[in-house]
């Protein structure tokens, strides 16, 4: 208790799920590994804080934060307006696009606008046309998404009742149903999907249609604090900015996702797409 006492000497307890590779997962020896464990270590070192990462169920995580059992969440939480009401977010340390994934031999595999960037923060005729085509392709289809993700918001707003949406508790389950053919496609974060497609099971899957970003999908992945913990949060904000600027985030992304998931890269791509 002394060690975890007050002030700046206190060990910060960081909550994560630990079953969401490659963002964060657990090794057989119980060690947490993945993008976020690495990244939190780097941030804490920069801030000269001692941090301890603990794994817990997502169901208990926000409660644990609110009751002070943990001090921050590093679990690839996407920033959304709803979440911002109860959590205090830092600036994003990653910004990934959502991709549609389906079985290679599924009709949706040939969906229009393959690989094109749909940026919902930049409305215009191009976006409207793409949205129309997307709606057409997905009409009457079953799309699976992770329940606590931000993608269901997006799908609901964009597709309305055109497609039916299934909610999964973990991505692993959703992936299974995708492979089993219970759902036609999923919308998921590219950083998660790329490594999956490289595995044996993932070989049957393919990305299809446009890549989506912005709008209801939120403003990237960020650390979450108690709303009142502003001092701590701004310290981390600074550290995040610095690590983005010096390329640390880019390096980590290439290591874990085989791509650069930093907000800077996303910004560049979005600019290019226009």
């Amino acid at each position, binding site marked *: 208790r002394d060690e975890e006492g007050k002030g700046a000497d206190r060990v910060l307890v960081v909550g994560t799920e630990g079953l969401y590779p490659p963002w964060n997962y657990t090794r057989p020896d119980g060690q947490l590994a993945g993008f976020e464990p690495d990244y939190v270590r780097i941030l804490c070192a920069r801030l000269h804080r001692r941090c301890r990462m603990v794994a817990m169920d997502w169901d208990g995580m*926000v409660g644990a934060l609110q009751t002070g059992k943990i001090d921050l969440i590093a679990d690839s939480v996407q920033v959304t307006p*709803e979440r911002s009401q*109860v959590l205090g977010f830092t600036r994003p340390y990653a910004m990934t696009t959502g991709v549609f994934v389906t079985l290679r031999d599924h009709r949706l595999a040939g969906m229009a606008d393959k690989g094109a960037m749909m940026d919902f923060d930049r409305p215009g005729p191009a976006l409207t046309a793409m949205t129309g085509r997307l709606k057409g392709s997905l009409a009457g289809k079953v799309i699976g998404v992770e*329940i606590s993700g931000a993608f269901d918001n997006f799908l609901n707003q964009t597709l309305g009742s055109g497609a039916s949406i299934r*909610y999964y508790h973990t991505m692993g*389950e959703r992936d299974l149903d995708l492979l089993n053919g219970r759902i036609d496609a999923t919308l998921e974060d590219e950083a998660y999907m790329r490594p999956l497609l490289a595995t044996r099971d993932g070989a049957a899957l393919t990305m299809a249609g446009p890549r989506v970003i912005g709008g209801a999908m939120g403003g990237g992945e960020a650390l979450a604090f108690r709303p009142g913990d502003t001092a701590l949060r701004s310290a981390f904000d600074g550290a995040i900015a610095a690590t983005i600027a010096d390329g640390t985030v880019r390096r980590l992304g290439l290591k874990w996702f085989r791509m650069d998931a930093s907000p800077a890269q996303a910004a560049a791509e979005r600019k290019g797409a226009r």
Partner: protein
Amino acid sequence: MGGAAMNADVTFLADTALAIVRAVPVTLGLFVASAIGASLLGGGLVAALTAGLAPVRGIARGWIFLFRGTPLLLQIFMVYYGLAALGPVRQGPFWPAFRDPLFCAGLAMTCCCSAYIAEVLRGALAAIPAGQIEAALACGMGRVTRLRLIVLPQMLRLALPAYGNELVMMVKSTSLASTITVLDVTGVAQQVIAHSYRTLDVFCLAAGVYLGLTGALTALLRWAERRLDPTVSDGAGEGASR
């Protein structure tokens, strides 16, 4: 400002409550279907346990061992994801049924709870005084008559508290169906939580719904218990025995 926040709170809770209540039929349907299925199957299992054929007994024992011994959650996963991973199931004639998460949840619950109910019934069967069954034998009652007239009523009476337990547990177990995308009371609650992060408030609302359901069930069971044994209230001979 505080008033506005409170208003927002009230609207949120009211909306959530409404959404949750709309999901009650799913929960209730799942419960009723699997309760009936599990009771019938459980009765069958007890019959099999007392059967003369050793293989029949063995199968019943194995069934109970497997389904009582593993968590329902895992069973639901295995029925839903596991069976679907098998080619024959996916190509077979039952795929439309197995494709449906509600069906899979019902199937897993029926199998799992049948094992529990079989145990309860077995215990009650053993508690029936031997003389009562002998008297039935002695007047030539066949298996079915004996069962219907003597064994079942006494068994029911003896089993009712524990059987009621099982039913109440089943009501709540239906919530596990939400893990395979069924939008029952829990599924809806979790959806709301996923967006609002108000875990405790929303859970308490859902808990209220479950409490209502189980409360009604408990009342029903107590009524049944009183009906089955009207002399209990006479306090016959209980003068100082407590």
